């Protein structure tokens, strides 16, 4: 069966796709590769020269490590490093926009992340090193929040009396009575909560799942587009498969 992908509308940074003709194992491989193997930038080492703020050095370093950093995948490879500096004197709130990178192409994606607060006369001065690694090393290198679910559908038995209770209780409003029959109008929005099944007094409803069609949801968090994340991941997957087949050929 041929694989087909349809993009649904993008809403507040979250992209949704309907993927048809694929096995659960394959789509899970894509999801896990995005989470674990896609190269990404994050601050790893922090040298603190001065920190007068009320926040402990470790606390501060941990917060800096969590910052999402924009990276272009062409000029940076796994293991590459970028230096960044942060110097500020109070009274002020230190934001992520105060961090200066030595490479103008690399910057913190979110400019308004509060890092710490300084009162009068307090100073911080630190040097950071961002490293390209993948989510396997730490969750801060994860480029996107990804998930998928099997496409749901609603099976309605003859017992249904069109009372409309299920339509009323649905929290995402995907049910509708069309021509005296309950139907799911846009199943990709269904959150599979099962409220419709539970509320039905006649027990006429049943949720069914299509094991070869998936709703794939991806929310990039480091400033890359969903397409870039998926594209980069597929490349990593391909390289890994090639390596594997090479190793297989060596066996006699």
């Amino acid at each position, binding site marked *: 069966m041929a694989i087909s992908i349809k993009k649904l509308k993008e809403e*507040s*940074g*979250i992209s949704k796709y309907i993927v048809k003709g694929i096995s659960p194992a394959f789509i899970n491989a894509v999801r896990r590769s995005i989470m674990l193997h896609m190269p990404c930038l994050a601050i790893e080492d922090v040298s603190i020269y001065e920190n007068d703020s*009320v*926040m402990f050095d470790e*606390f501060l370093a941990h*917060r800096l490590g*969590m*910052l*999402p950093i924009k990276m272009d995948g062409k000029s940076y490879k796994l293991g590459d490093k970028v230096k960044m500096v942060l110097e500020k004197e109070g009274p002020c709130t230190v934001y*992520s926009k105060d961090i200066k990178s030595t490479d103008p192409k690399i910057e913190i*994606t*979110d*400019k*308004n*992340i*509060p890092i*710490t*607060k300084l*009162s009068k006369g*307090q100073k911080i001065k630190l040097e950071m090193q961002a490293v390209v690694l993948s989510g396997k090393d730490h*969750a*801060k290198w*994860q480029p996107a*929040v990804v998930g998928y679910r099997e496409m749901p559908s609603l099976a309605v038995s003859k017992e249904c009396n069109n009372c409309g209770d299920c339509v009323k209780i649905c929290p995402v409003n995907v049910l509708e009575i069309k021509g005296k029959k309950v139907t799911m109008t846009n199943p990709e929005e269904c959150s599979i909560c099962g409220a419709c099944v539970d509320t039905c007094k006649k027990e006429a409803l049943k949720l069914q799942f299509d094991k070869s069609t998936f709703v794939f949801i991806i*929310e990039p*968090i480091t400033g890359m587009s969903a397409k870039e994340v998926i594209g980069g991941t597929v490349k990593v997957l391909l390289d890994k498969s090639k390596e594997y087949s090479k190793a297989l050929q060596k066996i006699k």
Partner: protein
Amino acid sequence: MMVPIRCFSCGKPLASEYEEFKKRVDKGEKPDKVMDELGIKRYCCRRMVFSQADLIDDIAKYES
């Protein structure tokens, strides 16, 4: 102490949204509506901003 930079469960960076959330909720808007408008959808992320207690200003008083 200060709002965590990312959601503990899913990893979405939320700290940049918190200041606006706080400002709007202090003005009297309903927290759930503000979170919806800021694009904080999942309940793991919602509890991060909703249950945050900012203590850094209280601690800063005792710093010599």
